[in-house]
């Protein structure tokens, strides 16, 4: 499957070119357009594993409960978009594993397994979702971001704000901690929690933090009645 990125970094879409028999698994809501003979089925899981429980878990990770499977009967194209203005990255897995932060998953080839990974109690306090998605196997994964994406090769130690993590290689260890030694400084600076990566591997970061953007909007949005 060939995946082409276009109109980046703000209006980005992924154009996936499918050969006969190939399947693309995409998050519900990502579909924009398709050309060619494509069969579409919707499941709560990937074919050959999981089920409702996996679907429920996916909600906790900030993803859609449902996955759409696009199977090409002949050469066709499926176009995928992203909800926020931002970029897309295509990462090819070759037996290695990638951890994708909440809400970042868009689609993958059918030979990629996606599962949820419990990030430990600490991640609850980080406000970034309890589960992150772990992608493994062989094939391409499509991930979205808010703003543009920049990679960082970690060798030793590096710190990223939890809201700016897009994905990272599983070879890295990490711990979530407060941004400063002092609770007061961490709170007043607005930085809150950070992720401290250790070891050797690559982290992809997004230039903007969707949560900060959302919180800027809050005073201007009509309150929900309860």
């Amino acid at each position, binding site marked *: 499957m060939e995946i082409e990125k276009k109109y980046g970094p703000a209006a980005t879409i992924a154009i996936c070119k499918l050969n006969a028999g190939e399947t693309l698994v995409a998050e*519900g809501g990502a579909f924009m*357009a*398709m050309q*060619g003979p494509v069969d579409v089925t919707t499941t709560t899981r990937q074919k050959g594993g999981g089920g409702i429980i996996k679907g429920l878990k996916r909600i906790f990770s900030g993803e859609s409960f449902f996955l759409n499977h696009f199977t090409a009967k002949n050469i066709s194209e499926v176009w995928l978009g992203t909800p926020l203005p931002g970029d897309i990255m295509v990462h090819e897995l070759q037996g290695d594993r990638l951890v994708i932060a909440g809400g970042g998953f868009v689609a993958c080839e059918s030979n990629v397994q996606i599962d949820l990974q419990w990030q430990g109690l600490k991640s609850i306090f980080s406000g970034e979702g309890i589960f992150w998605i772990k992608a493994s196997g062989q094939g391409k994964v499509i991930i979205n971001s808010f703003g543009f994406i920049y990679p960082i090769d970690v060798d030793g130690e590096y710190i990223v704000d939890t809201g700016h993590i897009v994905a990272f290689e599983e070879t890295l260890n990490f711990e979530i901690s407060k941004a400063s030694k002092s609770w007061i400084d961490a709170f007043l600076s607005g930085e809150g929690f950070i992720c401290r990566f250790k070891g050797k591997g690559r982290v992809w970061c997004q230039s903007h933090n969707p949560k900060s953007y959302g919180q800027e909007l809050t005073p201007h949005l009509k309150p*929900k009645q309860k």
Partner: protein
Amino acid sequence: MEFKIEERPEYAWLTVKVPARHKLFVEASAMASMSSNMNLRALFRGGFRRFLSGENLFLSEFTADGIDGEVCIAPGPSGDMAHITLNNETFYLASSCYVAHSQGVNYETKFQSLSQGLLSGAGWFLVKMQGSGDVWFNGYGQIVELEVHDQLVIDNGHIVAFSDGVEYDIIKLGGYKSLFFSGEGFVCRFRGRGKVYVQTKKPASLIAWAQAFRRIKRSNN
């Protein structure tokens, strides 16, 4: 008419040179700046149906008085803009994507059939542009032009405009399970010959995302 669209695709911005005594029609409140000899008149365009849909009932009509003038136009949402020249042709726009048109083109609001209007993200109305002249329209994200063929399917929320001769019906993506569960709802399947213009972002997704950031107000009783 002579024009330029700058800062595509994020902050597309249109400047039109209007020859003396010519008219330019623009979406209400979209004018950003203009030369001092431009004369503005509010043109009643809507009927009862437009009133019901909550859209603006008026179009702005700009006339160049005496000498040539120019109007700079920026639509409400930031995004891309596109232009098409009509040559005794008909062209359809999602109502929210209309920006401006020149003299010689007739602007008509078209009520979609019940099923089409109800189901398509374009809303109840389409704008039917007919005649010879210029039409400008906007979209969220980048506007992409697609050639229609028999196996083209597009999500409702991404459709901006289409040319005459293009037919579409509303279908569900996949089976009935997809309809309720896929998160995609309805999509348009196109037939016939012509062009469809799509936007790479859809406003509905942004709105759905922003919902999570609304405050919760408790009622007192």
